[in-house]
């Protein structure tokens, strides 16, 4: 169990801000930090990683104090056993992909893990290339693999997929989820993408002005109201077309594209790119065995 209760005065873009975060993570949980920029998401992650030292409070991980303001404990980042994926990937540009992963090995650590991670993230073909030659998605895969070389208990990701195109993002989400399960990780992700959060995360901390404004399962946070329909997905509106007296909306739900008929009243508040809840009664869908 990971527990933090920290306070820190930050200089934000709009003047000083008080970061005041209390959060708990269970082992094996996949949690997300969500909120507007400047709300303190990255700072929260950096405090957990030891890259930022809070003014007050404590961070305790599996019973061990990582930070305790009163006892003057501040464990250096390198001794926390954390996998961290930076927003800019932070790959070492002068090293090949293989060297990037090998550099991450701990002292005396068996290097089998490097091969295994390269295999899982399908990087073997790129092992001798250097990061600047790779696409964003490939770089992100390297960053993810590299963060796991020391087999950390805790994986922290600072908006890792934001800069990628849709298709790459979906593939990486799958990699991320697979790695989370395979390595029994406790994962804390920063994300703005509601679809992504719904797909990956079991718990959401919604931050605002340096505080946790809301927390709960993504369904409770993002679905405006609870609806009884058992056939529910969140999707993104790709296209809105008028067909006679109704509208046909093309909606992406994870990696499938579906069409939904809607009335004028619903369409009035919608535009392309909006996130929507697609719900139907469990009675409606028909099933075919494939």
């Amino acid at each position: 169990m990971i527990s933090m209760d920290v306070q820190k005065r930050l200089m934000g873009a709009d003047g000083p801000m008080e970061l005041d975060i209390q959060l708990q993570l269970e082992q094996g949980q996949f949690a997300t930090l969500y909120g507007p920029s400047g709300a303190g998401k990255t700072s929260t992650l950096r405090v957990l990683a030891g890259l930022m030292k809070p003014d007050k409070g404590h961070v305790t991980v599996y019973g061990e104090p990582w930070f305790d303001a009163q006892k003057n404990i501040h464990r250096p980042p390198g001794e926390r056993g954390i996998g961290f994926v930076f927003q800019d990937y932070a790959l070492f540009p002068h090293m090949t992909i293989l060297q990037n992963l090998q550099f991450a090995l701990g002292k005396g650590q068996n290097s089998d893990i490097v091969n295994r991670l390269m295999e899982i993230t399908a990087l073997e073909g790129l092992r001798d290339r250097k990061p600047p030659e790779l696409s964003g998605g490939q770089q992100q895969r390297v960053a993810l693999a590299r963060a796991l070389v020391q087999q950390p208990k805790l994986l922290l990701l600072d908006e890792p997929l934001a800069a990628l195109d849709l298709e790459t993002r979906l593939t990486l989400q799958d990699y991320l989820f697979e790695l989370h399960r395979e390595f029994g990780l406790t994962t804390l992700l920063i994300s703005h993408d509601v679809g992504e959060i719904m797909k990956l995360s079991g718990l959401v901390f919604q931050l605002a002005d340096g505080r946790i404004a809301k927390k709960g399962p993504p369904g409770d946070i993002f679905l405006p109201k609870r609806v009884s329909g058992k056939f529910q997905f969140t999707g993104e509106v790709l296209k809105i077309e008028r067909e006679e007296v109704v509208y046909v909306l093309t909606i992406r739900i994870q990696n499938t594209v579906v069409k939904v008929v809607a009335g004028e009243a619903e369409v009035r508040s919608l535009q392309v790119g909006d996130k929507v809840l697609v719900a139907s009664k469990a009675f409606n869908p028909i099933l075919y065995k494939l």
Partner: protein
Amino acid sequence: MMDWQPLLLTFELATVTTAFLLLLGIPLAYWLSVTRSRVKPLVETLVSMPLVLPPTVLGFYFLIAFSPGNAFGHWLNDWLGLKLVFSFGGLVLASVIYSLPFMVHPIQSGLSGLPASLGEAAGLMGKSRFTILRKVLLPNIKTSLLTGIVLSFAHTVGEFGVVLMIGGNIPGKTRVASIAIYDEVEALNYGAANFYSIVLFLITFCILLLVYLVNGGYLKKFWR
């Protein structure tokens, strides 16, 4: 037959000075690029002073400080056996200080230009600061390092005032090319002055040209 000694001495001094500057400049530049200490502006100012001070000022104070007639110079002489006035060692020390900004500035700006996440990522892997500097940061500022090395070297080659003040004009010990040129001109020996001058001109021209070619990426295929 021309006397090559002043030229050889010049390049020996520049090489030794540059080597010391690398050893001193890298840690200093690294410290300046990461520190949030309050003395940082003070240190930065001191490093930059040689840029604005006339070299004679520096030379004058060195002369005073290292003179065996003075307590500090006496102590150096007695305890460390160092005689820094009118000696090659003194020239090296003065040159190191005089060329310090030319080594520190490029490296510092190179390091500051790297994303902070590079060092942080390596730090999270449990690497020591030394390892991070050596294996992650320095390999990514090769052009800055080259610039620092070459500028320090070239600046030391071109130095005159400091050398004149504390080195004097002892053939084979402190009589570097720039002094020799001055000397030959004083003696109306224009042929020799021209010889030293043209060699210095050509060599420094080539060195600087090489730097601009490399940093401009014109020699990319050879450099990598």
